[in-house]
């Protein structure tokens, strides 16, 4: 069979790292081809080469057997290659329509012609069931809808080779199912799809073949139907990975944190984003707040951690009302917070790793004495944490946080928050975008903490994580807790229905 796209012996270097090392990848027309690999294996880089964002140092690309030059996205577009990027490339203050036509505008008499474009986008969206409001601003729509915009962008350009770079990382199970359906439909129309994901079950579900990369090198291509998930993950990591978390039953203790009738109003739209929420977390349990992104969980966490003042209700920790305490006081009283956005809140990227590891402690002795920072003590402590938590970086505690890989940045935050030995640990999407190895590690750490009698509030969109890790599940929908579930008795499908708001439960 002829290949529609062949990437032959691609080598791409970045300063200090060979991201793609002599990689060959062949796509058959009409297949869904999965690309698997750990964080930093070079998947996005390879795709960026195919899409014309990067120029490889070595290697050639062929389409239908003919060598083609792809120097920029215009070239790839002409060749019918489209890409949904891992980090969406959407202009936040543009409308959906503007984003879709950007770069492929039609112009008459110097004027942008949006009418015709609007019609054809509308048609596309109906045909593939990609529901979007084309006049909404990107900033105002959900992540799921943003993804649909990205897909529409490709379809609008009539691309026939579609690259999806980790499209499911940000979707709910229902949305993932929908996406899979759409992908299958697209393939049935003769389009070819390259699909990047860390989730093996998804590969199992839709992909025909799967290529695996490891540390920039090509490991091999397998037929998905003939390969088990364990085999694939071993190819990817180079060792056996434990996909299930082993944990003992929870030994719960006192109530550590209690939230009562908490309400939060959005400052701009004045809509209720958190509505009369009450729950408690006990020592020795992991309570999971499950929900689709944008249902108030971020605001709820901000209120608990002090980044935002609630409009009504109280928050107690260890029996003390902390609703109006400043953030530092809460930290001092034993609250830890692994934030949702590691670059926005979690790290000062221009500080080095050592400085970041003492972000909530620099003012305490011995890191500080009479107002002066004690560098040696800070680095000593940092090195200790780096060792203990296996945080990898080029220059140890002196590495700029900015230059660290996402996975190791996340490890640093986890290390910092756990090492403060909190009574109450709030972990928001602690494994987002990480590879299985890193996920395994962080999950193990969280369970360890629980077993040491910490109260843990876990906020996650990943159903597997929710099911595996939690002792109790609270489902949040449109700012309200709509169900309190036991992970041992509820099924993933059911959980999905609660999260989507189509089912409400008894509140325990």
């Amino acid at each position, binding site marked *: 069979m002829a290949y529609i796209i062949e990437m032959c012996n691609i080598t791409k270097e970045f300063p200090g790292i060979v991201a793609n090392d002599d990689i060959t990848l062949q796509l058959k027309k009409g297949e869904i081809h999965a690309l698997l690999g750990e964080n930093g294996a070079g998947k996005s880089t390879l795709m960026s080469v195919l899409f014309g964002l990067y120029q490889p140092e070595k290697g050639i690309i062929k389409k239908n057997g003919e060598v083609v030059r792809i120097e920029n996205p215009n070239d790839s577009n002409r060749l019918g290659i489209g890409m949904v990027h891992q980090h969406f490339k959407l202009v936040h203050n543009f409308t959906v329509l503007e984003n879709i036509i950007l770069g492929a505008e039609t112009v008459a008499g110097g004027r942008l012609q949006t009418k015709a474009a609007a019609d054809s986008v509308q048609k596309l969206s109906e045909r593939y069931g990609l529901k979007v409001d084309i006049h909404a601003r990107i900033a105002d729509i959900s992540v799921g809808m943003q993804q649909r915009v990205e897909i529409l962008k490709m379809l609008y350009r009539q691309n026939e080779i579609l690259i999806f770079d980790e499209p499911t990382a940000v979707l709910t199970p229902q949305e993932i199912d929908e996406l899979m359906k759409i992908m299958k439909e697209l393939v049935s129309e003769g389009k070819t799809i390259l699909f990047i994901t860390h989730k093996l079950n998804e590969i199992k579900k839709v992909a025909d073949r799967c290529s695996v990369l490891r540390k920039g090198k090509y490991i091999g291509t397998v037929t998905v139907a003939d390969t088990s998930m364990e085999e694939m993950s071993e190819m990817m990591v180079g060792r056996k990975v434990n996909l299930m978390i082993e944990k003992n039953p929870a030994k719960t203790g006192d109530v550590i944190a209690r939230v009562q009738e908490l309400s939060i109003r959005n400052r701009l739209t004045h809509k209720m984003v958190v509505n009369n929420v009450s729950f408690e977390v006990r020592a020795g349990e992991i309570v999971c707040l499950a929900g689709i992104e944008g249902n108030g969980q971020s605001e709820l966490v901000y209120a608990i951690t002090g980044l935002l003042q609630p409009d009504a209700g109280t928050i107690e920790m260890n029996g003390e009302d902390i609703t109006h305490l400043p953030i530092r006081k809460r930290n001092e009283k034993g609250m830890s917070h692994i934030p949702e956005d590691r670059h926005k809140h979690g790290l*000062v990227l221009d500080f080095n790793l050592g400085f970041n590891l003492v972000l909530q402690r620099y003012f305490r002795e011995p890191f*500080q004495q009479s107002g002066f920072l004690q560098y040696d003590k800070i680095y000593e402590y940092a090195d200790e944490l780096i060792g203990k938590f296996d945080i990898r970086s080029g220059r140890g505690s002196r590495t700029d946080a900015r230059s*660290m890989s996402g996975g190791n940045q996340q490890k640093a935050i986890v290390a910092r928050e756990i090492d403060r030995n909190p009574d109450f640990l709030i972990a928001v999407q602690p494994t987002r975008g990480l590879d299985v190895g890193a996920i395994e590690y962080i999950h193990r750490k969280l369970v360890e903490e629980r077993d040491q009698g910490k109260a843990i509030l876990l906020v996650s969109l990943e159903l597997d994580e929710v099911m595996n890790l939690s002792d109790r599940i609270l489902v949040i929908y449109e700012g309200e807790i709509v169900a309190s579930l036991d992970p041992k008795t509820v099924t993933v499908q059911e959980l999905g229905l609660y999260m989507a708001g189509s089912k409400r439960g008894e509140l325990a």
Partner: protein
Amino acid sequence: MKFSWKAYVRSDAFSSFMSSLMAIVVGLFIGFLVLLVSNPSQAVRGFGAILFGGLTDMKNLGQVFYFATPIIMTGLSFGFANKTGLFNIGAAGQFIVGAYAAVYVGVKWTSLPGHTHWMVALMAALLAGALWGLVPGILKAYFNVNEVIACIMMNYIGMYAVNYMVVKTVFDSLRNQSLRVAATAVIPKAGLDKLFITGNSPSSVNAGIFIAILAGIVIYVVLDKTRFGYELKACGYNRDAARYAGINEKRSIVLSMAIAGALAGLGGALLYLAGAGKSIEVVDVLAIEGFNGIPVALLGLSHPLGILLSGIFVAYLTVGGFNMQLYNFVPQVIEIIIAVIIYFSAFALLLKGFIQAYLKKKDRPLEEAKALAADAGSTEKGGGVE
């Protein structure tokens, strides 16, 4: 730790320094071209005046320090704010209100004992400057007002307010400027006038240069060595993360602007209390020293110690440019040269890259050996240094 020259050459600080140096060389070269074009016969002598004018005699050397004093202060003001993520373009206003406060105290509070009079005047300037910095700080922290525009507004408000107050309180109507301050309010010469003298004409340099240097060192220590500096920098680099960490980021912004203002205000005092016979003119023109601090800070890479050096360097060029008049050149050449230097210092990042790439190339065999050794030990080679 023992100082290793080799390690220093490989360090970031060294490449930064080299890139500034290269910018200076390019700037001077273009300056020389300008001289050549405008008056070939005198170009070499004129250029000599630029390069060595500040060194021709002790007085000129003293003048270098005298001119450096206020621009070091406004440079520190800008650089300090910059390090904490703020763009203080309001030094002009802070400078002039500081100058006014100092002059007011210097003229009016003559009952103060001699040795404290000038110090009180400096304090007054510090406070006035701080106040002027405080306003944009508060607006930024609590009302999200872009500090650039707030600072520009405060510059003009400061200028008009000072014009009004000078006329109301300390006006020398014969000269349309502020009255001379009392002798006790003049910053002591600290013997510098005996050292930096040529013939019987002493330089205007005074203890102000020590105060400026001290200010630079203090700012360096505060930013780099203290917990307070850690907080300010954290806010500057990432306001959200600072808040997350429990740092009161609003307070930090306000304090940071106030300190920047205080530095500029102090600069105003150091100039107008220098005893060089300078008075505040009642004109609707912003204090140029406020803007001159920006290039000084940028050339010094916003580092307090860098600013000390670059302030002295710019002053050195200024003195050279003044002397260049002997060879029939317009002093504006100096401004052109400084502008070109600043322009090329903007390329620092790229130059730094070149320098580091060059050094690396030289080190290649060594590095590769090291890398091999390291690879054997660890599975993942993370953490790019660049």
